[in-house]
């Protein structure tokens, strides 16, 4: 199964929609939605609402995140926005500012 990788020097201003996993190393402004997972790597910047099965944040995310299964913030994560997921993991070191709704 092919996965989508948004490279580190790439800037996308718009919408990404898919049925497969997305790995973001670059910058995305707009909206992200997929039936699979979204991984925001360390140097990445996401200014978008994110909707996916699982969301793993290792970089900067500014926007509302909805994960149908699980949201994970890694130690380098910096998230500002509302999180909605039945399971949430926030690692030591991650910064997070927003509302949390686990009642999914």
């Amino acid at each position, binding site marked *: 199964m092919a*996965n989508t*990788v*948004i*490279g580190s020097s*790439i800037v996308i201003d*718009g*919408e990404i929609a*898919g049925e497969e996993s*997305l790995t973001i*190393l670059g910058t995305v402004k707009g909206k992200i939605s997929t039936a699979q997972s979204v991984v925001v790597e360390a140097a990445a910047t996401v200014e978008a609402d994110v909707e996916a099965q699982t969301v793993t944040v290792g970089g900067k995310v500014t926007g509302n995140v909805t994960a149908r299964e699980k949201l994970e913030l890694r130690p380098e994560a910096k998230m500002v926005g509302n999180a909605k997921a039945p399971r949430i993991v926030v690692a030591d070191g991650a910064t997070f500012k927003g509302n949390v709704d686990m009642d999914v």
Partner: protein
Amino acid sequence: MASEDPCFIGSKTTVRGQVSGKQDVVVEGRIEGHISLDSHLTVEESGTVEADVEATVATLKGEVRGPVVATRSAVLHATARVAGKVKAPSIVIEDGARFSGEIEMDVELPADVVPGNA
């Protein structure tokens, strides 16, 4: 190229909007909008690009609609289906490629041959 990490738009992904960057991009899915790359854009056979495209090299094997401006070269492979304008200093069209549109290259003609007099 600036980075070694890939930029790959999978076959089940659609990107709508502006895509810009300095690294090679390979598209097996769909991009609509604007693409502006200081690098190599490859549209694979399953890829669809409906966008204004600017790149250094454009390797087209899939469906491309929209002006394509490549600063170095554009290659339409046998499976390409391209419509619109293609502008590049070097353009290659392989047998089997389907193209409908305008091709803009600088063509040096001798002084006494002027288009339009035929």
